C-alpha cells in the first residue's frame, strides 16, 4: 500500500514536471504573434529555450551575452541567474528579465499565456534624437508586404487613417 502511494506520488511529481516544461506561450512583438511550444512555467517571468530566443525577439545568445544589432546585454552562462538557467542540459532564457534590463514595456495575460512586448527604447533613439524615420513592414489589402525602406530616396507622406 505504502509502495503504491509512493508510486502515485512519483507519478504526480513527474506529471507536474512535464506540464511545467511543456507549458506554451504566445509572444506578441513587432507585429508578430509567435507561438512558443515550450516554456518554463513561472508566475512572473517568461523562460524560453535559448534556441527559440531569435524567433521570439530577434536576440541571439552569444558568449558575450544576448545580442541584437549593436546591442549586447551581458549574460553569464556558466551559472544560473535571473536571466539564464540550465535544467537537465536544456538552456533557458528569461525574456521578461531581458525586457526589464532594457526598459522594454510588456504586459501579460497570465490566464492564456500571451505576452505583449513593446519597443526597446535604445533601438528607437535614432528617431527621437535625430529624426530618422523608423522602418516598418506592413501588408497591403492583398497580403503583399511592403517596407518603408523600399521607398527610400523618394519624398514620402505617411498617412494614418481608419475606417472607423
Amino acid at each position, binding site marked *: 500500500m505504502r509502495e503504491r502511494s509512493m508510486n502515485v506520488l512519483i507519478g504526480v511529481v513527474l506529471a507536474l514536471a512535464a506540464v511545467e516544461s511543456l507549458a506554451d506561450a504566445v509572444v*506578441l512583438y513587432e507585429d508578430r504573434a509567435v507561438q512558443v511550444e515550450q516554456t518554463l512555467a513561472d508566475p512572473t517571468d517568461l523562460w524560453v529555450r535559448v534556441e527559440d530566443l531569435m524567433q521570439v525577439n530577434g536576440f541571439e545568445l552569444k558568449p558575450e551575452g544576448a545580442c541584437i544589432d549593436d546591442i549586447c546585454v551581458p549574460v553569464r552562462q556558466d551559472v544560473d541567474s535571473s536571466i539564464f538557467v540550465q535544467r537537465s542540459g536544456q538552456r533557458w532564457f528569461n525574456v521578461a528579465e531581458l525586457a526589464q534590463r532594457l526598459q522594454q514595456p510588456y504586459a501579460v495575460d497570465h490566464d492564456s499565456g500571451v505576452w*505583449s512586448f513593446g519597443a526597446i527604447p535604445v533601438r528607437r533613439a535614432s528617431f527621437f534624437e535625430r*529624426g530618422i524615420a523608423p522602418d516598418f513592414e506592413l501588408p497591403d489589402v*492583398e497580403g503583399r508586404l511592403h517596407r518603408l525602406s523600399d521607398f527610400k530616396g*523618394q*519624398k*514620402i507622406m505617411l498617412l494614418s*487613417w*481608419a475606417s472607423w
Partner: protein
Amino acid sequence: MFSELKDHNFIIIAAAQDAGGAAAAAPWYEQAGARFVALVDEQHTLSSLYSLVNVPSAVWIDETGHVRRIDEGAYATVHKMGDFQFGRDDYAPMVANWVQEGEASKWLQPAGSLSLEPPSNDEALAEVNFKLGVYFHQQGDEARANRYWEKAQSLNPDSWNYARQDWSFTPETAGENWTKKVQTLEGRPYYRPIEGLDGR
C-alpha cells in the same frame, strides 16, 4: 492629389489603423480608387512608431529618410455632413508645395529639428495592452479584448485611436462616447495645431 504629384519622386503610403484588417480597410481603398501604397495596419504599428494618437495623421519623410513634419491632421479637403463639417483645405497645398519645391519649400522643417518625445511609461504600457486587445479580438475573445483596450485607454487617455478603435465595435454608442470624450478636451485641440497654419 497623388495623381498630380507622383511624377515628382513622391509617394503616399497610407496605413489603415484597423484591427478589423483588410476586410475593414479594403472597401474604403476601393471607393477612393487608391493609386498610392495602400496598407493594412491591424496593430496600429504606424501610430506606435511615430507617436500618432489620431487619424488622419501625416508624417513627411525626405529623400534621406529624415522626418520633416509629423503628427498633423492631414485632411485633403473639408467634409460636410449636414450642419456639421470637419477637415481642412489648406493642408494639401502645403504638401504640393513641398513636393514641387523640395528643400526650398517654406513648409519643410529642418532635419533633426523636430521635438520628438519618447513615450512616457504609461503610454508605452498602453501600447502593449492595446496590442493584447487586438490579439484577443482576432482570436474572437471580445471580453478579453475589451479588458485590454480599456486598460490602454486608461493608461493613455490622449489616444483617440485606442478609444475609437474600441468604440468601432459598438457603433450604437460610439457617437455618444466620442461626444463625451471631446468634452473632456476643455478647449484643447482635437488635432495637434499645424505649424505655420494654426498660429504656431
